[in-house]
């Protein structure tokens, strides 16, 4: 197992180098002069030259890439053109908000998705099966930005029970330790802040979690149906084991492998989906950060954020593969 992990980590290196080349090349794909594109038509030649110098755009492509890679390896992601702030610090500050939202969305998706999938499989062709699978089908077709807006209209505007934006209501105090607000409020025993942070998480979490929830529900159902046909399930039933034990201990355990892969893949995709969700709910994470950078043509921020997200995405996929192998020793990779 350890050998496998080490080999996979080595295989990661060319992919990450490729990711860095692609991210680096983005700025060179800009039609015309990148400096002009960033500073706009009114910029003077002196300003343009200064930016070119600052970004090293006058050097050769290879030299630029070497510097880019060297800086990244030292944790230096450069500074924002607009705010002049250190991008690495900004990302570190904003990442917990995105990770908190993503984990919360995934938790909702897994709990509801797996439960719905299991019940639908156990009660195949029942009204619940039909209803949940129709819901899952609708779920994968929903534009999450529209769902988010409709939620705001229903829960914030019409019913006035959930806050429409942000992470915490103005005036609610919270001493941040990790910048994960739910965790921080538990650590400091601040239940007022916990309740407030939780209510802020609900809508964006649900909006972001809808698509993975639908996919997980469908995958769990089909995987459960496959497993429930196996002989060992029949044996477990025949020997009089309680039904919930058969379902959760025997069937779900064996049906969970394909579901695990889907969860891993979806988790990475949520990081992409966070751009839309964070924009709608004004969630101060890296999704909104990159969106504002795109609008402001702040390319160093766009480059760095995309590089970090892609690296996290690749690592999550690797972790999924490792877990898959761990849980199913029958799988052999050459």
């Amino acid at each position: 197992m350890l050998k496998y992990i080490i080999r996979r980590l080595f295989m990661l290196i060319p992919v990450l180098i490729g990711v860095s080349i692609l991210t680096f090349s983005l700025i060179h794909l800009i039609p015309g002069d990148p400096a002009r594109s960033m500073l706009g038509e009114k910029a003077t030649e002196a300003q343009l030259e200064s930016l070119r110098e600052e970004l090293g755009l006058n050097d050769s492509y290879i030299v630029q890439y070497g510097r880019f890679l060297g800086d990244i390896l030292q944790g230096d992601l450069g500074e924002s053109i607009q705010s002049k702030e250190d991008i690495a610090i900004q990302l570190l500050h904003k990442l917990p908000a995105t990770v908190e939202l993503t984990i919360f969305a995934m938790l909702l998706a897994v709990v509801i998705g797996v439960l719905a999938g299991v019940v639908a499989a156990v009660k195949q062709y029942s009204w619940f099966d039909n209803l949940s699978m129709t819901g899952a089908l609708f779920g994968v077709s929903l534009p999450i930005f529209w769902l988010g807006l409709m939620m705001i209209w229903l829960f914030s505007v019409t019913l006035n029970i959930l806050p429409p934006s942000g992470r915490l209501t103005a005036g609610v105090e919270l001493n941040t330790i990790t910048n994960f607000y739910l965790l921080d409020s538990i650590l400091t025993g601040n239940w007022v802040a916990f309740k407030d942070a939780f209510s802020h998480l609900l809508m964006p979490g649900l909006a972001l979690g809808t698509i993975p929830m639908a996919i997980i529900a469908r995958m769990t159902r089909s995987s459960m149906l496959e497993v429930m046909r196996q002989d060992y399930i029949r044996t477990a039933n025949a020997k009089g084991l309680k039904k919930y034990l058969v379902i959760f201990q025997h069937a779900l355990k064996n049906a969970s492998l394909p579901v695990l892969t889907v969860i891993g893949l979806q988790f990475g995709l949520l990081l992409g989906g966070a751009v839309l969700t964070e924009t709608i709910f004004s969630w101060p994470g890296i999704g909104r950060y990159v969106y504002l950078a795109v609008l402001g043509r702040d390319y160093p921020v766009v480059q760095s954020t995309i590089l970090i997200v892609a690296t996290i995405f690749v690592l999550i996929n690797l972790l999924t593969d490792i877990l898959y192998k761990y849980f199913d020793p029958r799988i052999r990779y050459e």
Partner: protein
Amino acid sequence: MHHLSLQPNPIPDPNTVNVDQSEQTKSRRLWIDSAMRIVKSKTSFIGLCIILILILTAIFAPLIATHSPTAQDIINRYQPPSSEHFLGTDELGRDIFSRIVHGSRISIQIGVIAVGIAMIIGVLLGGVAGYFGRWIDQIIMRIIDIMMAFPSILLAIALVAVLGPGLTNAMIAVGIVGIPQFARIVRSAVLSIKETEYIEAAKSIGAKHGRVLMQHVLPNCVAPIIVQTTLSIGTAILDAAGLSFLGLGAQPPTPEWGAMLSDGQAAIQNAPWVVAFPGLAIFFVVLGFNLLGDGLRDALDPRLKQ
């Protein structure tokens, strides 16, 4: 894996392929069977109907629309749905129904162009990688791996960020991020097809690689390509609408559904219909393509049925 259409017997002449009559009948029968299965399946039939409605709406948009999609009528802004304006009016008093009807043309355009880019490049890359193998395969598939290291919508946003906002660039970006899926599917199909006897036969009588690939291998990958194309159109429309919603895709006054949502979000408190109806349009069209895609997969290759 997917031998669903013509499978010629060993070929006498590489330049004049004579397909056996009974094989041709069998193949036609297979497609007819598949079509029957789609029509019989309730869900894929609904999907097919939704797509037909979309196509008809796009063709007859000027006849169906009750107003001009761009005509402003500031006095009548934010009118709720009524007999005059079926789905109400937006912030500039434009008729939402007419804008949605005309927007169907843009959705089809996005579907065809974005997925066309993804399909043509993806099929060629996957086909070449699978057919030639070795270092060609290695290079192509590593590039595909790198592209897949980015969450697709984020890569699309990054591409539009550098290419500049606009519907054309959004379609190109959505097309590019769709390439890996086609490449992988076609590569795996080609890998199994190239080992079959009729490919060996074609090669042994001296047919050139290009001809074997284009005339014998790729036509036998049609089934998975059709399924992927249908499912990809839904995703492409969704992604392009997302880009337009962020202000990176279609620009005003284009009646693109995602852009309509974006324009209307400020008024959600007082005029929720401005946001509700364009979103429903996106939802139904994507649902249609997903339903049909699922149905096609089950009909063309029952082994993939979940």
